[in-house]
């Protein structure tokens, strides 16, 4: 048992180091969501005066999207890093050790979870500096970090599945626009009750990303909203489980060792 814990620990550490030592991977994770937040907050501030808008602080409303974008960067970075390992033969090096399949993926995803906590902390801190108010208080910080880590793991696992299936970093990166569309077709910019275009409202209603965003958002705006939180966690857990199933299938095909 302790051997597997060690394997997971060293692989998680390596996964974190690989990302932290690549500034071109770190920059988008940290700054892209914040730049987008700044642009949206300055351009869409007026919507807070719409009847039914839940807060007067657009930053508090929009900061939730940064956590989802961070998760999507986990997809790209984790997937690209794994695809590079496959292309370079590093994956085969790992496969030639007594490492178990489950430890291989667990190691990667524990590293992703740790980075998810780190990036969530950065978004929270920058949001607070910019004027976002966390209504849930100190307890909310822990929940945001947990949901941020889970979101990063879910998306990161999807990236792993894509990398294992294709073995190509380019193919993984090609997924980013696809997933980004999900953010725009959600309640990212307006609460669902204020989306008046029929088709947009319908899509946002069935788009799981809406519920994930609202899970984060509820902690900022409403404090402790049990319904929003369980829906947010349900989406993150569901995403993670589906992604892990996809990883298991792809790993069986990719790793044919006897």
């Amino acid at each position, binding site marked *: 048992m302790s051997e597997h814990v060690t394997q997971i620990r060293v692989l998680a550490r390596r996964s974190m180091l690989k990302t932290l030592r690549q500034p071109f991977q770190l920059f988008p994770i940290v700054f892209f969501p914040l730049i987008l937040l700044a642009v949206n907050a300055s351009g869409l501030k007026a919507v807070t005066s719409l009847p039914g808008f839940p807060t007067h602080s657009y930053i508090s409303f929009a900061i939730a999207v940064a956590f989802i974008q961070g998760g999507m960067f986990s997809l790209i970075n984790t997937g690209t890093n794994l695809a590079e390992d496959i292309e370079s033969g590093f994956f085969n090096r790992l496969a*030639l050790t*007594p490492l178990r399949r489950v430890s291989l993926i667990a190691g990667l995803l524990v590293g992703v979870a740790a980075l998810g906590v780190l990036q969530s902390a950065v978004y929270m801190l920058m949001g607070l500096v910019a004027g976002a108010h966390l209504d849930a208080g100190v307890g909310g910080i822990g929940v945001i970090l947990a949901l941020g880590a889970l979101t990063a793991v879910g998306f990161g696992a999807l990236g792993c599945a894509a990398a294992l299936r294709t073995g190509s970093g380019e193919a993984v990166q090609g997924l980013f626009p696809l997933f980004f569309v999900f953010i725009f077709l959600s309640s990212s910019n307006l609460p669902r009750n204020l989306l008046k275009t029929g088709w947009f409202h319908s899509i946002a209603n069935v788009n799981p990303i809406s519920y994930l965003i609202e899970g984060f958002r509820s902690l900022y705006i409403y404090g402790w909203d049990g319904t929003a939180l369980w829906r947010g966690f349900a989406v993150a857990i569901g995403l993670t489980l589906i992604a892990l199933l996809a990883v298991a299938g792809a790993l069986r095909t990719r790793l044919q*060792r*006897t």
Partner: protein
Amino acid sequence: MGDNGIEVDGLIRDFKGGVRAVDGIDLRVAPGEIYGFLGPNGAGKSTTVLVLTTLLPPTAGSARVAGLDVVRQGPEVRRAIGASLQESALDPFLTGREHMRLQSALHGLSRAESERRGSELLERVGLMDAADRKVGGYSGGMKRRLDLGLALVHGPRLLFLDEPTTGLDPQSRAALWDEVRRLANDGVTVFLTTQYLEEADVLADRVGIIDRGSIVAEGTPAALKASIGRPSVEVIPQDPGDLERVAAMLDRFGEKAPASSNGVAARLPEGVSDVAEIVRTLDAEGLAIADLRLHTPTLDDVFLAKTGRSLEGAGDGADAEDEQQDPVAASA
């Protein structure tokens, strides 16, 4: 076969689209032997290594490595072997020492043991000074040496080296050869694939030549070369009018051999020791020569004799093997 030998019987590996990369090979590698697996690109060398290192299951046939069945005892095989596969499979963002720590931990070494073994191996492969630098800044030779060191972390009894010197400069290549010889002297069995004739010739105790998935010749380098004939000597007279006299003189030493248009050649039944006598005879008969060439058979001649093609360039356009190694793209 002993505890660190290799036995392969009728090994076949097919890929998607009906491509047969390995076509029923049989081979035996004795414990402590350096076995050179020589062939052009796409011949089936790397696929064979992937099967023997348990990374690909065979389509048919059987293989035992270190006395263990590669299909039924994969984890045990992996504990017994070390492998440095094609290309240096390293993480450019980790240092040499971090690679050692990672590899040691995955093989279950304790932290103290990992530090000791890592330092010992970094010293052995001459990378102690660069141990704390990121691998992305290493030269090709340094990467290959680190790759070799990593394959030795757990003290394997058998080592697979897949084209370990491809792309290296002569100095790095010679250093790696020395290390391989040292390992063999320590009792490690080495299975080495190469497309370099010289490498197989100088390094391997025995050589298996593979082409299009089949072993076409096998033996010691000397025996393989001897199997296709004795050396020959070619004489090019200064005066083309002397060709017939030179030919008559060479007839006394051995049967006629193929030669260039302005020369004549003869096989030397007694080997190269005949050359001195030929030179003395030419001198005694007053035959001035423009050139005298000694042709000793090479492993390329062996490949040519067995396949009708030269090994140099035989793999051109046959890089499909690399693609076939992608199990997702090419599973049977």
